[in-house]
């Protein structure tokens, strides 16, 4: 199964296995990973599922669409070129192992 590794700002990390097609926000909320809120349940409407994807993996992910792009302007922690909305990043296919960092602030 595809695996996501969540790294917290304090350096600790957690590995979570997800089904094909699962996304970074849903997996985190189901596992109770701190720092990912997912208020809007994946509607790309809240920006409380913000993560920084590992630079090495960034290129293999589906590109940022308009809805995600405008919402990434509303993240609480700083947006960088590796910022994504967790709910829009799906696992499966070429993306079998993904490392993401959780920002220090989400609301």
């Amino acid at each position, binding site marked *: 199964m595809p695996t996501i590794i969540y790294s917290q700002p304090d350096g600790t990390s957690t590995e979570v296995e997800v089904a094909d097609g699962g996304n970074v926000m849903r997996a985190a*909320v189901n596992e*109770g*990973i*701190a*720092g*990912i*809120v*997912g*208020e*809007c*349940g*994946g*509607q790309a*409407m*809240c920006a*409380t599922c913000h993560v920084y994807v590992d630079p090495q993996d960034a290129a293999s992910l589906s590109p940022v669409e*308009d*809805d995600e792009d*405008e*919402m990434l*302007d*509303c*993240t*609480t*922690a*700083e*947006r960088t070129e590796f910022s994504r909305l967790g709910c829009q990043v799906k696992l499966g296919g070429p993306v079998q192992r993904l490392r993401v960092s959780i920002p*220090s*602030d*989400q*609301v």
Partner: protein
Amino acid sequence: MSTIPPATCPFTGTTAAPLDAKASTPAASTDTDGREAPVADWVRIEDLRRNPFPIYQRLRAEAPVHWVPAVNRYMVTSYAAAHEIEQDEARFSANERESLMKRAMGHSMLRKDNPEHQIDRDSYGATLRPGTIKKHWNAIFEANNTKYLEELKAKGPGADFVWDYAAPYTGENLRLICGFHNATHQDMQRWSQTLIDGTGNYADDPQVWAKAAASSDEVDTAIDEMLVYLAKNPDHSLLSNLASFPIPLEAIRANLKMTIGGGLNEPRDVLSTTVWALLTHPEQLAAVKTDPALYAKAFEESVRWVAPIGMYPRETTRDLVLEGIRLPAGARLGVVVGAANRDPQVFEDPESFNIFRPKKPHLAFGGGVHFCAGTWIARAQVAQIALPQVFGQLPGLRLDPETPSVDEGWVFRGMTRMPVLWNH
């Protein structure tokens, strides 16, 4: 607003100072044992309407879920339980049986579960999203705000903040967002109130149904007309988007009625409540006046403190246990976000209005797939545009000491009277 560089959030600015507040992620409860829900037969509707918060305090301290005979529902008052419901539509359905909302407005997205819900939600396109707000709606909201602030000023001190400004301002904004170029903001307010009265018509009053049905017919006629017009003259409105979207007319009608009912009163109420809260907390008012970036915080704290939609329904799809309370399949629940937002397990000193409290996610916009589609519209028109102008243009704004303000309601809560004075 137009002065904000393109890469920043149009509502909150880009970054915020680091805070140690973390989201609370309650653990899901298992569907095994659990106890019966206690019965709260002492809860009375009149008391809830006047001031629900002491009742919520008592309920929450006793159990996260109660059976409340007066409301004919289980009331869920803890943050953890409300949050668990929002995140799990498989066990907690929005598609309530015998829903008064369905009777008054038709079967809208708000009462559908996925996958059906998502089709309706997607039919709203980009109209309510931040990009469209920034490019298109903000300028319109600013023009409307100028117009209705001028009308308030013309009325002079003693005017009512809610009815002489907040209601027409938010009504006019929603009229244009929906695309009702053939109606007035007065029509919008009347439709909204009569349709909402229908969704709350537990007493089955035939007159209430008659008024709701009359409004429903008027809205249908207005929609039919506008769909033809907007197909030829497209704009950024919801109806314009819907004119070219493959979706049954029945769904368009129900969704628009739900949006009229849910998109007008809430911004009006949060605008009035926030101004009232700031006027009664002068130190916080002084702070926002010196740092306008704090208006966004005042807005967010205000919707936490007095959630404009205090309760919304869900129904269990199976026997289950919620935060230790056993619930049968088909149980009708009221998710009381007005209470969850003051849960002391999550918010320190929850009863007070404090724009400087550590940031935590509140539940006033709901959560999960039904998360309010108008969240950013509300933030833009109230926090970004109205609040700074209200305090900027009405020097010495204060509540009228002669005629006290009135706040009331619990399913919907806001100011129902708010006479104000200012120096002019």
